[in-house]
């Protein structure tokens, strides 16, 4: 029987079990958790230990490693550990820079193709992707254009939430009233993103370390990857940045979280000083001196 005679309501995570679980998650998804995350593991994965009727986190580790359903459970564990709290119009200064400086530049840059693609990499439950869609729409610069806002996240349930586009009060802590009245409608089930914005957005599940699957995103003009790199260690961050670079069109922009930078990660981006923000740009250089050497 699986009940514990110790009288503890549920098993507690021991430090060695934490390190073992941390290793397996790193190995699978490149996600890096520091010692502070032990509490998060205990709380979020303790639920799984209980639900599976296991006696300890060590049993849970072995379940992940050896059980036929281990790979599925590993995905579940990652989902439970990475769900981010987010909300519409987060980090307003950066969004202002996007709307007032980057969008006009892109409107000129892509005037011939009339195509714009923005990728919210690590979109969590979709608030950022929808915010970007609203800003693009509000700019009035892209009427009759083919506009695609792509949202991706490693967490399946977050992606499902994003697709639904129905949110509760906590997602609206800084949403301007005018945007709320323009792009949302209230229903008993929650606050719904209006269809004309939803239609611009496309969501998918993606591990940013999986460069092969990332290629499904296509080429994009802007990548928002805010507060995502913090989950990766240096080595994995470099791989993620390489993937983002690969997906960006020449002259495309990369926006990171306010405490993140490419220092010691990549030299492949130029730094662009906007009025309100610093962003990165993939160089426009088209002709490579070493094209022969690389073939």
């Amino acid at each position: 029987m699986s009940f514990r005679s110790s009288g503890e309501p549920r098993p507690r995570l021991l430090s060695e079990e934490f390190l073992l679980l941390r290793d397996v998650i790193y190995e699978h998804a490149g996600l890096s958790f520091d010692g502070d995350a032990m509490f998060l593991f205990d709380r979020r994965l303790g639920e799984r230990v209980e639900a599976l009727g296991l006696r300890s986190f060590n049993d849970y580790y072995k379940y992940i490693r050896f059980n036929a359903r281990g790979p599925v459970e590993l995905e579940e564990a990652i989902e439970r550990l990475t769900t981010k709290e987010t909300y519409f119009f987060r980090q307003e200064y950066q969004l202002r820079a996007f709307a007032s400086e980057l969008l006009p530049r892109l409107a000129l840059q892509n005037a011939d193709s009339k195509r714009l693609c923005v990728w919210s990499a690590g979109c969590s439950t979709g608030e950022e992707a929808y915010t970007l869609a609203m800003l693009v729409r509000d700019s009035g610069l892209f009427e009759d254009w083919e506009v695609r806002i792509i949202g991706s996240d490693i967490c399946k349930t977050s992606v499902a939430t994003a697709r639904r586009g129905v949110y509760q009060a906590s997602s609206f802590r800084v949403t301007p009233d005018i945007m709320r009245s323009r792009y949302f409608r209230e229903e008993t089930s929650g606050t719904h993103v209006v269809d004309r914005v939803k239609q611009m957005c496309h969501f998918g599940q993606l591990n940013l370390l999986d460069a092969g699957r990332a290629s499904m995103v296509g080429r994009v003009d802007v990548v928002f990857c805010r507060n995502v790199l913090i989950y990766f260690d240096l080595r994995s961050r470099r791989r993620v940045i390489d993937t983002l670079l690969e997906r960006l069109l020449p002259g495309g922009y990369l926006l990171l979280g306010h405490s993140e930078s490419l220092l010691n990660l990549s030299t492949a981006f130029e730094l662009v000083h906007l009025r309100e923000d610093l962003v990165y740009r993939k160089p426009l250089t088209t002709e490579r001196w070493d094209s022969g050497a690389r073939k």
Partner: protein
Amino acid sequence: MRRAEEIAAAFASEDPEQRRRAVESLRELENEIDAPARYVLQALGDDDWRVRKQAIEVAVAFAPAQDLLTGLVAALKPGDNVGLRNAAVEALGAYGQAAVDALAHELPKLDADGRKLAAEALARTALPSALEVLRPLLSDHDSNVRAAALDAIATVGAAAAADAFDILSRFLQNPGEEAFVRLCALDGINRLGSLLPWPAIEAMLEDPVLERSALSAAGRSAHPEALPALLGAFERARGGGVAAVLAALVDYCRAFAQNHLLLRAEPASRAVVARLLALALPSNEDIVSRKAALTVAGALGLEQIAPIAAEALSDGRMLAEADESLSLLGSRAVPALLERAGRADPDTCAACIEIVTGLADTQSGPLAVQEIRRWLGTASPVVVRAALGAITLFGDESCFATVSAWLGNEETASAAETALAALAQRYPESAQKLARSAHTEGEQAHAAAVIQTALHAPIRDSVADDVAYLSVLLSNPAKAVRRAALAGLGNAGSELGADAAAFALTDEEPEVRHAAVLALSRLRTPDGVLPGLPKLLELVEKSDDQELVSAALGALGEAGDGRVLAVLRPLVRNAPPMVAVAAIEALARVPDARRVDALIEGLSHGEPEVVKASMLALGDTIDPRVLAHLGACLDHSAWDVRRLSADMLGRAGGESAVLLLRARLAAEDNPRVLEAINRALDAGSGMRHTPLPPRAGSLRPR
């Protein structure tokens, strides 16, 4: 030749992106061009930072190329190109002992700027051998060089903490030294996490140059007089000073919490309270200060923090500090937690219930349970499991029916069984009555089986009656009931259940078969013989079902019978990983000294998981061979084996372990393993006194 021309042309380009790519390509073209080092050195002095950064990466990749090393050291000599000198410092760090030797040789020839840069480069090597090269720089006539040397000693000190602390603390006591140089020494001590005596810290608080770093030292001191100083500084702090004092306060609070002390005797001023509460609000985008404010406010016993902390439980980033804050507040946090639980998403609601359960005592617990029970009807499984956890600790006799109702739900059955068993042990008479009146169908049957597992047999008139009842349950259509019945049979401990348990090995459900295996390991004849043992050994020998074999091995280990050693040992080296791990865990429980040899054999298994299991099993063994074998695992091809080896050596401690770890430090390139080695060296040195961040269950002032 053509390559060299192409490279030269690209290096002459006005477009920095062309130059950067040319540098990037040097790694691929290393063997196609003459003297690639000259291009790297040229690029290290480029005008554009991206080209210099790229060149550093290439220089590091070329380590330990002698011509490049010579050029890098030469770059520290007097010159106008500051970018080149800084880039050389960064690259030299990757050249390890070769850089230490080269810099030791060249130091006398360098000017003051060069010596300062050399100290920085030595710091980047992170080698203890750099200490001896740095020591003479402490008497350099140039104060900037002395400061850089102190800073470097603190950095290198991670690998030689005792030596570094000795050097830095003696330097700090030199009153004739310039204040900013003493500041470097103090910062170094803070970085090492070492403790200074309170009088020394107190004196430095008066010095405007040293004050901020002295506050950081005060935070770790846990001295009673440090708190007023810290709170006063927090109230006065402006700009970046706020975060610094707050971090010191967090250290202080955690040092107290680790000793199960509370800070509530120290009243905080209104300004301090207002500032802490404002910083803890979700509108504060600075996560670090928000977390710190939660911890400090909880430790100071500010009740106003309870609803803010309860709100923060839904944010994964804040979870640990929110829990810490609420736990430090104690029972005064309960109303806010119950209010939050009533309107929260399932995960947050479950977290609230768990924290309430952890905070409650025998008086407040039952009241909280009453409140929590009201939500159970409509709650999600996550919430139900948390609520059942509360009942496990504080439920009363009236909870039997509530708990039994959740036995039939697969997602809550395990938590309900735990709660029911706890209730049965607290109220055995009621439980016995319930079990005796139970039918052989439905939730009552399940409850009866759980009760028979939790209480001493017999529950009915005789053990034979108990076994007869449970044997009937083995035909119950619900697999959870059959599983519970087998657990009950095992608890009855009589050989009377052996045949029924053995037949249950044919059950179609794996979990029932596993329960049968466990039951067989627990049955005993009156003279202590294990009637199920032959069956279990046969299973290990003949079954192809790896999960079942693993369960049988676990049961054999639990039986603690020395005869199983011969069965387990051959499995350790060659069995499939799942079985080998189970055999190792079983071996660890066998009371026979020969098990150590068998466990050491497990270290040779081809699968890293088996090696790790062997290491963990050996970890608690007192045997002189173990340390050497754990040390050998530092060279294993799998990084996670090396990581575990480092952590286990750190835990073992002692001079031999430290030597093994230091030896590996120079050769290791995996960041996870390097982190573990440094962690282990910290643990081995016994110098670190910086309080730990929150850990599950470690900070509860219960």
